[in-house]
């Protein structure tokens, strides 16, 4: 039974978070979009240049490279995090002292700040003083070299965020009625059948929610990448946020950096619409 959308109490309830959201999210995004039409070095005066920054963006090879890196990183993050979180979520959802204790420890990486995680892993992965040095076959390998840096960052990021998605899957799995599995086994279904035909379909909304969070989070991921590689070596790990930061805060080219930022916001918006919008993958009525 739904209350009418004109219920004043409901409107008030919605308006407060909307106002908060408007001030802290929408306003800065609009501000960034506005900045993209200016040339500004961050400390001097601003100069209106219309769409010049956007024109430059289309011709910028560093931008298209950063876009590519963003997508590759996002894909890698999704490919690593989703199966692992799904598996762990189901594992931890079932009874057992070991499982319950392990679940608590598995949650720890999420509690650290990205900066702390970055610094710890930076020391651990140091080719000369870190873990790899003490494993002779791996000595001399640099996980943060041009070839490996992006993959390493994706793995470290996954290490940090898998616990979160594990929780999502764990909770969702626990919501699946036992009777379904009992009925299936009575009908002769094996474990794999049960997983494929019961678990996965019923977890579909969770998979989409989790994927959405991974995708948008990875597209905009900055802290860990900056702490560990600063977008390097060269431009090997320069994704869009890192490129934005370098432009705005290192090269003192804030107007152009804002252009990258506005593009990123629009990209994230587009992807959200695709996934969870009205006609999106989740939006469609599911029966």
């Amino acid at each position, binding site marked *: 039974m739904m209350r009418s959308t004109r219920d004043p109490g409901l409107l008030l309830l919605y308006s407060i978070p909307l106002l908060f959201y408007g001030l802290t999210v929408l306003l800065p995004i609009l501000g960034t979009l506005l900045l993209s039409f200016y040339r500004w*070095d961050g*400390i001097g005066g601003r100069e209106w240049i219309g769409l010049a920054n956007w024109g430059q963006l289309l011709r910028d090879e560093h931008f298209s490279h950063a876009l590519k890196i963003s997508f590759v990183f996002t894909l890698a993050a999704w490919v690593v995090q989703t199966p692992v979180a799904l598996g762990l979520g189901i594992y931890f959802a079932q009874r057992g002292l070991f499982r319950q204790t392990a679940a608590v420890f598995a949650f720890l990486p999420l509690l650290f700040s990205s900066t702390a995680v970055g610094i710890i892993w930076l020391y651990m992965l*140091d*080719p000369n003083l870190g873990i790899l040095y003490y494993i002779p076959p791996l000595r001399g390998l*640099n996980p943060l070299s*041009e070839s490996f840096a992006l993959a390493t960052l994706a793995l470290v990021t996954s290490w940090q965020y898998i616990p979160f998605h594990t929780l999502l899957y764990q909770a969702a799995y626990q919501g699946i009625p036992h009777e379904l599995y009992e009925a299936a086994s009575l009908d002769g279904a094996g474990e794999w059948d049960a997983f494929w035909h019961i678990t996965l379909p019923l977890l579909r909304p969770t998979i989409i929610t989790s994927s959405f969070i991974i995708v948008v989070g990875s597209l905009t991921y900055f802290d860990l990448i900056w702490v560990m590689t600063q977008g*390097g*070596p*060269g431009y090997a790990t320069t994704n869009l946020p890192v490129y934005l930061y370098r432009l705005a805060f290192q090269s003192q080219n804030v107007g152009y950096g804002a252009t990258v930022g506005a593009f990123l916001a629009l990209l994230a918006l587009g992807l959200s619409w695709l996934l969870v919008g009205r006609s999106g993958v989740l939006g469609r009525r599911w029966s």
Partner: protein
Amino acid sequence: MRKWIGLILLLGVPSLGQNFEVWAINTWAVDQFFPKFIQEWNRKNPNAQARLIQFENDLYKQRLFVALGAKSGPDVFYNWGGGVLESYVKAGVVEDLTPSIDPAWKNRFLDLAWRGVTFDGRLYGVPSTYLQPVVWFYNKAVFRRLNLQPPQTWSQLLAAVDRIKAAGITPIVVAGGSKWPLLMYQEYLADRIGGPEVFEGIVANRPGAWQHPAILRSAELIVQLAAKNPFQPGWESAQYGTGTVRALFATGRAAMQLMGVWEFGALVDEHPDFVKSGDLGWFAFPRVEGGQGDPRNLAGNFTNYLSVSSFSRNKSASIRFLRELSFSDEYVRFLLRNGAIPPARNIGNLIRQEGAYPDWQGFVYGLVEKAPYYVLSWDQAMPPQLAQPYLDNLQLLFLRRISAQEFVDRMQRLADGLR
């Protein structure tokens, strides 16, 4: 009624005086001396309390940039002078200290020291730390074992690299991930090959400045060095701030490091046994055969500076604070006791008396006294719009992802775009 008067007084009293913030990086000189100095200052100036806020080196640069842009934050801020400070001066966020600096204050320091903060004949900061040329550090034990002498020419350096590498030791450590340690190679090579005019053309952004043959040659020599793989594994992602590069050097797993003299203080701080052992050696950047530059020329930072922001809440106290620091004999002695050399005049004798490391300090002071020319670190002298892409391209050059010619072409294009 009394309650209200009390409340007003309570709110009013702090605004009679005004506290101010001193922003600086984490570096041994600030870490160890400033807290005590500020404590003394606060005791004597209850109405103008100073508060020290420190940041990690690489992050500080952006943090400062954002704060100055927002005109909020520091009253006094640590900086490296040069083109970066100049961009802040042009934006109107740095206080012109010329009227406040009397001749006595000016004469306290070497003329060289004031160069980094002099723009259009006005002064925008005061020297705050110590002379910081860049020199080679080396491990004497490793050299002894291999019967090597400190190289005096570039070929000798390359030969040493080969010998050390053959012995299974990392010839040179460098924090290539931070990028700025890489420019120390080029700033010296360019000067050794072509003399001061090379970089002067770049700073003035004269047409074709980057196409000076010395730049191309310096880039070629860099490629020549990099081709030998002289650096530690993972050098391209090693960051200066983590101290891992220093640790490799101090523990004898690497033989040489090209770094500013502040590294000496850091070694004293983090690896005192290594310094005490007497195995820490040093030599000036070798000459390049066929080069036109004077081999006595130096590159590096003149010194660090402290400037006052134009939006400071308490300019008079900030300036007094700087004056007191500049005239603090205790600070001079502190620096000398830790192996550093303040950019002060006439302290040759003082170095011999008070210097805790007279060999080292005599070496550095001698270099500075005799240097006909001293070029400011390229990434501080260039405007930020050029400095950042320069560092990026330099790293690519060291990685041998771009050729020397392509490096020159890219930099010329970038410089032309800024003219």
